[in-house]
Each structure stands twice: as C-alpha cells, then as structure tokens.
C-alpha cells in the first residue's frame, strides 16, 4: 500500500484503534485535515482552543485507559496545547499529541507560525519526536503510542513538518506491529525476592497502612488492590489521584490523606509502623513536612518508575514493576502462606483508628440560609446515586468533591492533581462524555476556573454533549481566599472575581440550559431536574457560602499529626 504522509497519519490512527481525536486545524496540518475529511473511521472533535483539545483527550484517556489523541497546528496551536500536555505529564496520562510544523526547509528561519515545539514540550512530556522523513512517519507514530501507553504512561509529542504530509509524495506503508526499542523496555514483573521481603514485613507489622495512588487506577489494578486489602484486613488511605480505586463506602477505607486529607488517614500515617505505598509518589501535598513524615514506619514502595523510588522519601523495600503484577504476586504469596497477620496488633490498631474516625473530621456547619459547598457535593452524590463520572477544576470545589463525593469505582474521578490546572474540568468532561456517551458526566467547577475554558461550551453544542456543570459560585478564587484569610491576615489580594458574567444567560447564549440555585431547600430538586434533562447540557450556577473553608488542613511546614480542624469538628473531643 502506498500512502502520502497525511494518509499515513490517519491510517496509523486506525491501526492503533483510535476512534476519536480532538483538535483544531491550521496551516501546517491542512494536509492531515484533508485526509481526515475523506474517511469516517476516525472521528474528529473540533474544540475552540487547543488547551481544550489536550484536556479533552486527557479526560478521554483517564476515563477509558486508552491513549488520548490530539491534532493541532504549529506555532500558537502547539503552544496553546502545552498546558494540557504538562497536565497529562504530571498525572502520567497516556496521550499522543500530533503537532504540525512549518516545512522542513523553513525550520529555524522564524517562519510564520513557527516555534520549536519539541524544545518547548521536552520538559513537560514523556518524549518528543520531530519527523524528518516521510519514510520514518509510520514507525515514529507506532513508537509514540508504545511509549505513551507503556511503563509509566505519559504524553508523547510528534512534531510533523508540513512537507512530510505532502499528498503528492507517496511511500510504501506497513504499520510496524512488533516494535522493539533497545533504549526503552519498561519492567513489568516485580522482583520476587523483594516482594517476599515486603510480605515478611507486613506479617510482622502491628500498625500497617496501605497508601494507594493514581498508579493503581492507571494500571487497572483496582480489583487486585481490593482483594489484597481485604485479605490483609488493614486500613487503606488514598491520594487525590487514587480515589475510587478502593471503594470509599468500605469500612477499611480511611479517606484521602494529605493536606486536606481525613484526620484518621493522616494520624494513621503518622502512627503506622509499616507503610505500603502502591503507585503513589510521595508528593509534597501528601507528605506534609518531610521531616515529620511517617516517623515510625518501615516503607514498602511499589512503583513502575524507578526514579519515583526514594526521590522524596527514603524507602526500605523498593519494588519496581507494574502495580497490578506486583500486587498479584503479593496476593498469591500471602494466600499460599499459612500464617496470618498479627491479629491482636491489628485489633488494637483498628480501635485507635476508629477513635480518630469518631472525631468526624469532615463535619461542617449546616445551614438553611446558604448553600454549603459540602452539602452541594453530598446532594450531587444523592441525586446521581454515586454513579457518575465527575471531572473537576482546581481549588476548594475540587477538595470538597474529593472529600464528599465518595467514589466507589476507579476512573470516575477526573481531576488535575499534579499540575493543578484551572480550566481542566469542562474540556476533560467533554472527553469523558465522548468516550461514554450513555453515562452521566458532570463537571464540578468554580466561577474562576470555568472562565478559563468557557469557550468549550460551543464544542459541547456542536457535538451534542449533555454535560452537567455544577458551578460552586462563591464569587472568590476560594482556595486563594482561604490562604489569604489564614496566612495573610485577610488581605484578599486579587482573589475577588469582580464583574462576573450572568452564567445562566451566558449558557443560554451558547444554546444550553442554565439554572441558578441559591437556597439549600431548592438544591436537590434542581439537581434532579438537571440530570433528568438527559440530552441537554445543563449549567447550574449554585450560589454557595462565600466564606466556607476546606478542612481539615495541614499547613505548610507541618506534619500529618498537626492538622487544623474545622470549627464544627473542633467542637468534638480529640481522642
């Protein structure tokens, strides 16, 4: 088969099984767009800004496990995509980003819409390619998908100069199915000796805890994690990225840990004697002050990325390998072993944990007058029966959603954890809805975040995406305001979002349904109505308490045992 470069791009996508891509045309990618036009297998979603394309592909990838694919033009097309590429990189999301480039002969001449795309994307992607010959294109694309989806996944950028896709130059095409790269061969199986050592440590533990992260979700290891945790009977806490991998409704789940984590989770981390870290990377938002982190614990760390191990925290038993494979091996060894974990130790450990849990760290003051954001998330859970794909933007609403929407399944909670990208929620939800057309998809957002990618409401109209947007409108950049209240004596420097649009009218002008709610008593019925409108995008402008803060909280420089509690929780007795 002889194909042009443009046709090779489209054919390679088909051969990779790609059904949907997100993009925006421009000069350097016109040949590729022409090839896309002449086929029906690969569906293209036209966004309104390239940042939206990358977040949408990201949401698609997070909710399915399949790589997200983006197609944008050179110059500003590529630079607009960078925030989305960095977002995917920090959360290890498989993505292939195809960027047009000026013709090879013009590279380096400051040509129209030229930037050094591989140079700009290098530090925020897993790998970058610049295609130099059309003969290399198919193999480069195969490599891009292979690198993006294996090992610790991540975004791969393929920069394609316009002459490479010239429709008049045809070359033989064969998709290289069996690719081997001498410089890249991620390990899968963990070292059995290390796994056995870890099992010994777990058997001798008196106060063990599992700390599970996004790697469990990425590796589809949720089922194995649940089996192992139940087999051992030990408590489990999850990072922001790992939520849903272990059912939040289960008794062994202590909630999220870290800066806005649950008291019982953080205290258990502080008192633990054995910490089993699974697909988590000891991020600063999780550890608090490193010097106070898990002072008594021996640490087991399971991770596919060797460079994650002992990067921030020294570990005692590192196990490099796929989380799923390692957990399966661990489970098998434990099931074959006739011993049981120290039951007396575990019983008294659970007694202490239950006492911490009894404090009710997520308690908040109820109100009949004003909608509390926590109450809004609880209502969302009630109305959707917990069966929802929920994306979020960044800030207080993100933390409230993580704390109060109890996720029972993996790949349901979609948020920018590592980079903390405002503007992520709406386009990510589009990607999720494209992947799951028959499922309920909502985006919880704030009035500051939503304005960063509001233009994507037009994309939702064009592609008929019936998202439910839950705007927690407090008129402030809530998290910034909270820090200014706590650490800057209430000097609210530029955190007040003055001159907000009328979101209901704005939504209507895009052709969607807008609603405004400001009374707690109206909220449930309004949300129910929103979700009953199955074929329409409904934008709910929910006016919430402008002064509510996220608790509990570990302030910067403090340890897990030094949490600040909400006023409502402080009224209880600390055990």
């Amino acid at each position, binding site marked *: 088969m002889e194909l042009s470069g443009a046709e090779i791009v489209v054919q390679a996508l088909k051969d990779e099984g790609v059904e949907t891509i997100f993009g925006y045309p421009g000069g350097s990618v016109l040949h590729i767009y022409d090839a896309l036009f002449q086929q029906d297998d690969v569906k293209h979603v036209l966004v309104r800004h390239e940042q939206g394309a990358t977040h949408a592909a990201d949401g698609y990838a997070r909710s399915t496990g399949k790589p997200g694919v983006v197609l944008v033009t050179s110059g500003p097309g590529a630079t607009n995509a960078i925030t989305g590429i960095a977002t995917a990189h920090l959360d290890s999301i498989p993505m292939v980003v195809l960027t047009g480039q000026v013709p090879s002969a013009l590279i380096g001449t400051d040509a129209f819409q030229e930037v050094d795309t591989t140079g700009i994307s290098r530090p925020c992607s897993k790998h970058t390619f610049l295609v130099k010959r059309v003969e290399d294109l198919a193999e480069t694309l195969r490599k891009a998908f292979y690198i993006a989806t294996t090992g610790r996944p991540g975004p791969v950028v393929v920069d394609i100069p316009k002459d490479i896709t010239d429709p008049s130059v045809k070359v033989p095409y064969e998709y290289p199915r069996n690719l081997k790269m*001498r410089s890249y061969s991620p390990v899968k199986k963990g070292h059995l000796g290390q796994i056995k050592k870890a099992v010994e440590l777990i058997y001798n533990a008196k106060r063990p805890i599992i700390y599970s992260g996004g790697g469990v979700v990425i590796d589809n290891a949720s089922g194995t994690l649940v089996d192992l945790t139940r087999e051992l009977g030990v408590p489990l806490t999850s990072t922001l990225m790992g939520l849903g991998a272990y059912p939040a409704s289960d008794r062994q789940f202590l909630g999220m840990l870290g800066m806005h984590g649950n008291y019982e989770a953080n205290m258990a981390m502080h008192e633990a004697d054995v910490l089993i870290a699974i697909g988590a990377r000891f991020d600063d938002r999780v550890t608090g002050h490193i010097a106070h982190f898990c002072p008594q614990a021996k640490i087991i760390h399971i991770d596919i990325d060797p*460079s994650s*191990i002992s990067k921030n925290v020294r570990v005692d038993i590192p196990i490099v390998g796929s989380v799923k494979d390692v957990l399966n091996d661990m489970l098998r060894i434990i099931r074959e072993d006739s011993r049981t974990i120290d039951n007396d130790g575990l019983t008294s450990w659970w007694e202490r944990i239950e006492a911490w849990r009894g404090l009710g760290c997520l308690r908040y003051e109820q109100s009949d007058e004003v909608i509390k954001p926590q109450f809004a998330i609880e209502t969302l859970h009630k109305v959707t029966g917990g069966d929802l794909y929920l994306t979020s933007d960044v800030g207080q609403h993100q933390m409230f959603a993580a704390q109060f929407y109890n996720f029972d399944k993996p790949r349901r909670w979609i948020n920018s954890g590592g980079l903390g990208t405002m503007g992520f929620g709406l386009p990510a939800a589009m990607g999720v809805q494209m992947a799951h057309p028959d499922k309920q998809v909502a985006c919880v957002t704030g009035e500051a975040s939503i304005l960063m990618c509001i233009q994507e409401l037009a994309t939702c109209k064009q592609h008929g995406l019936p998202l439910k947007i839950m705007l927690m409108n407090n008129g402030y950049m809530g998290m910034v305001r909270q820090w200014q209240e706590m650490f800057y004596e209430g000097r609210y420097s530029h955190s007040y979002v003055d001159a907000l649009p009328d979101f209901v009218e704005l939504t209507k002008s895009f052709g969607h349904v807008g609603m405004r709610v400001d009374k707690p008593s109206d909220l449930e019925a309004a949300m129910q109505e929103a979700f009953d409108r199955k074929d329409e995008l409904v934008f709910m402008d929910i006016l919430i308490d402008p002064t509510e803060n996220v608790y509990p909280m570990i302030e910067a420089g403090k340890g897990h045992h030094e949490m600040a509690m909400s006023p409502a929780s402080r009224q209880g007795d600390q055990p």
Partner: protein
Amino acid sequence: MKRHIISLLMENEAGALSNVSALFSARGFNIESLCVAPTDDPSLSRMTLVTTCSESVFEQITKQLNKLIDVVKLMDLSEGDHIEREMMLIKVRAEKEMREEIKRLAEIFRGKIIDVSDNSYVIEMTGDSDKLDAFVNVIPEDHVIEVVRTGVSGIARGVKSLTL
C-alpha cells in the same frame, strides 16, 4: 559530596543531547563537564558527564538519565578503576626569556607545542583534569591568552566495558 563520572550510550538522534542537558537544568542537577561524540556504531553517541553531588542526588541523576527514552545504557565510571582524560589547547604569550621557560614547562607536563608565532605558542596537552589545572596554574596569569578544554572522557580499566 562526591565527584562522579557518568558514561552513557544514547541514540545518535536529533534532540538526544538536548534531552540530557535539559534534564540537568530542569531538575537542578549540576554538570561540570559534558563531552559527546559518535561511537564506532554510527547509531550511537557516547557521552561522558562529570558532576559533583550527594549520593541521594546521584541516585536520582542516574535514574532520571535511565528514564530518558534515548539513553540506551549508562555506568558510573568513578565507581571502579578507570582512566579519565581531558585535552586542552592553551594559547600563551611567549616572548623573550619566557619563550624558553614555557617550552620547558610544557615538556615537564608532556605537552606539545603545535603552533608557534613571534610572540605566542599554542600547546596541546592531555591528562586528567587536575594535571591540566596544574599546568594552567604554573603559567603566569598575564601570559595565558586563551584556554580551550574538551571536558572529561573516560573508560573503565580491564575488561569491564560500556557496550551494547
């Protein structure tokens, strides 16, 4: 803090060198010298990197380098017996009585004078970095016109090797 010499093989491809140097600046690692050229296998480049850092930082450097897609293999030369060499071209002012003096110093250091003009020499010298430093230090400062150094390259002693 310890001085490490990392020797690595990487794909001889566009962007590979940038990937390595960008890694050092992005993660705040320090590079003292970096020396790179193709090998007998034209698809591979060999790079020698010198860095001084703590053991934990060094562990991260090697892990992060291994993580780069273009890096095929690496070793820490300073971990075992090894030879390190650096070449220097130094241009010095050589007039009157100093012409003889500098020539004699160059001979002591086993340097070669490879260019001569009425009032200058260019001296070629090979050795480990300390030796080259020592030579620069014995030439009076106002006589040094220009110093060009390649950076360290190195190889392990004995049969131990860094090959595919």
